[in-house]
């Protein structure tokens, strides 16, 4: 049986079964009129079809893995490590990481756990390793670790270091398109394997969480009261993964292909709720390649953020005191990019680059944190009309 055939069968069951029969049954409860006879016939044929197909399935089914999410989860959890390290106070910190190479590179989130002197990793078979922080990226909040030889092997011995480990391949990516896995669409099942609340020990299986992929969006979030550094794309999911220990978990699709890694615990600046999200595969792959290819200069720091000078669009709004003020444009600088784009005095600015703002301080903040040299997209309200204005950067950069 191919997937498409199954899809046809199941979608027919899903689409045709539940409602029509009951509607007719209710309309004519007693009489066996033509309508209902045909309904009975349909029902009989449906059941016989199910019967026939289940026989077909049993006959045809080759030796396949057990059903549901099992295949995806097993693939994922064999390629994940349980991490232990520095924690708050006397507690041991714990988390999860993804095995990125057969010789033991680990991609995980940048957190307290990987900041201590001693990091320990346990693979799916229960082997314990010491791990070492190789690279960190504070903008992406990611860390690259390398496993050293297993803990139970004599340190002087040169025997058996790191066997070929099952791992996810980060080298097959093309940054623009996710070529390593089927494109993920909203509504697709996702499965994560991780160690929330450090429930699993040694070779015990990690915890599975399942849900659907909700949307891909830019992260705008905070940790405690500070804004979270990472502002790139994230994959929002409806599985609850905002638990201690979950960050660094492997997230895969139904086929068991890596689609992301569960990120650190954050609160959204938009909804003010805890977010359940993953760092997308392409971001992880970019980080991994940059981290493994750049020569180690000892600092362990890498940065992926391009440094570009931003321009002054020429919009003047002042904030008076501590009062919340609606962002009405007070003045547009002559011959400025904003004036050329058609912005006028008294326009009310509703959003900057698709991020809505509700007061002057938010406007100032958005302008500071916007993409450096890109076009600024403003949505404004002028009387009853709502307009979109694109402010292009000045063409000649050396002009004052």
């Amino acid at each position, binding site marked *: 049986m191919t*997937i498409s055939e199954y899809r046809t069968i199941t979608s027919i069951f899903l689409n045709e079964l539940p409602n029509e029969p009951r509607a007719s049954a209710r309309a004519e409860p007693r009489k066996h009129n033509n309508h209902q006879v045909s309904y009975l*016939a349909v029902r009989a044929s449906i059941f016989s079809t199910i019967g*026939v197909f289940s026989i077909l399935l049993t006959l045809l089914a080759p030796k*396949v893995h*057990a059903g549901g999410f099992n295949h995806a989860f097993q693939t994922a959890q064999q390629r994940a490590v349980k991490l232990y390290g520095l924690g708050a106070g006397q507690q041991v910190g714990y988390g999860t990481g993804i095995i990125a190479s057969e010789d033991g590179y680990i991609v995980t989130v940048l957190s307290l756990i990987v900041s201590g002197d001693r990091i320990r990793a346990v693979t799916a078979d229960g082997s314990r390793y010491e791990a070492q922080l190789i690279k960190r990226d504070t903008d992406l909040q990611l860390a690259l670790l390398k496993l050293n030889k297993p803990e139970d092997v004599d340190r002087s011995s040169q025997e058996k270091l790191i066997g070929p480990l099952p791992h996810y391949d980060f080298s097959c990516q093309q940054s623009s398109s996710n070529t390593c896995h089927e494109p993920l669409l*909203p509504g*697709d099942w996702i499965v994560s394997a991780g160690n929330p609340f450090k429930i699993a020990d040694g070779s015990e299986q990690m915890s599975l969480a399942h849900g659907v992929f909700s949307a891909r969006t830019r992260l705008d979030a905070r940790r405690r009261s500070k804004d979270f550094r990472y502002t790139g794309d994230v994959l929002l999911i409806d599985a609850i993964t905002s638990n201690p220990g979950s960050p660094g978990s492997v997230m895969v699709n139904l086929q068991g292909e890596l689609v992301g890694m569960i990120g650190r615990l954050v609160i959204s600046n938009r909804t003010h709720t805890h977010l359940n999200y993953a760092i997308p595969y392409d971001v992880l792959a970019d980080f991994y390649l940059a981290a493994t290819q750049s020569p180690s200069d000892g600092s362990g720091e890498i940065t992926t953020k391009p440094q570009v000078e931003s321009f002054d669009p020429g919009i003047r709004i002042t904030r008076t005191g501590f009062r919340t003020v609606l962002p009405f444009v007070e003045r547009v600088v002559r011959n400025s990019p904003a004036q050329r784009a058609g912005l006028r005095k008294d326009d009310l600015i509703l959003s900057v680059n698709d991020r809505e703002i509700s007061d002057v301080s938010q406007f100032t903040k958005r302008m500071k944190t916007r993409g450096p040299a890109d076009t600024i997209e403003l949505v404004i309200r002028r009387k009853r009309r709502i307009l979109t204005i694109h402010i292009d950067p000045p063409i000649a950069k050396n002009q004052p």
Partner: protein
Amino acid sequence: MKSRTIIILLLLLSCPWPVTKAKAQTKEVDSDTALMIATQQVFRDVAASMKSYLVRIDTVGGTQPGKKLTLGDDDEQEGKKRLQNPFRDTLGSSFVIADGPATGIVYSRDGYILTSSFNFAREPALISVTLPDGRRLAADLVARDYVRKLALLKVDAVDLPLPTWRKSEDVQVGEWAIALGLGFGGREPSVTVGVISALNRMQGNAIQTDAKLSPVNYGGPVCDVYGRVIGIAVPMAQRAGELAGAEMYDCGVGFLVPKTRIDIIAPQLMDGVSFQRGWLGIQVSSVPGVGVVVKSIADPSPMRDAGALPGDIIEAINGAKLRNYADLAKQIYMIPAGEDLQMRLSRDGGAIDLAVPLASAESLGRLPEAEEPFDPSVPVEEKTPEDQDQPSPE
């Protein structure tokens, strides 16, 4: 429809064995996984098809709802303000309403947009709506249902595409529920999936689902596998407050207002009529072994007009027997002002049946001074839902 089914089934039945066998070589999946793939395709299709009915709502201005106002006993002016804002309460200072965009759904071809009143708790100065075709228009807030947490907006537009609605009577516990929202911005809705977990919640005002609902999709639709709208996602809880239930986001207990209710509510909202929370205007106490006893009655109030007296015992409301204050609260929270309650009182051993219309907060008078001073040693003193926003005696 039926003939189509039969034809498809016949085609399937006649599906030749060798063809199936030949294709079996390509990619093997077990039946369980195949079902997953099929459902995944259904979720994708629903998300894609609903995109043409979802609108994004942005608001500008307004403030976070304030913390609970403290009311001086002699400050009548502030007391009045407090009464007029019976929903400004509940979640404490740690809860902050979403700052991001909100979700709505096209309700009529000529520009009525249905959404949740939760999205306007900040009383924004301006509301804009981005239609599915990308047009962004200024919107007017027509009316709100503070009880069912719905709101109706109007934009100047014509010939908007309308979604199909699901008959509420057909909805079954256990069937898939797909929730969509635009609360993270952008054009693509975010999708969360669960099942219908209970029917007939909140006095018939809500259907319960375990799909994750949060400010991301409050005001957005919850759909069935055919892409029909079962209802509108709203925050709800069995207590008063404009934000009640918002703290339960993403927890697996979420509510949607079904089509049957919306059919009743929406026409009134279109006429500009808002639904306010209903008040009886009484103070009661739960007496163990006796029931809910009326302590004092405000003047004017619906209970006084109906002829109730202090000392009456409220036996039942709308046929449901009351044992304590919580039972009473449950019967009243989800009933808006203007609707009648069927109440059975017992006075001196005899039963009295009354039809009591609930009143809005503004039309209530003050409660008379309690005859006995408050005695902290009596623990069962409890307030009616009508009074719970008033300060307790110090």
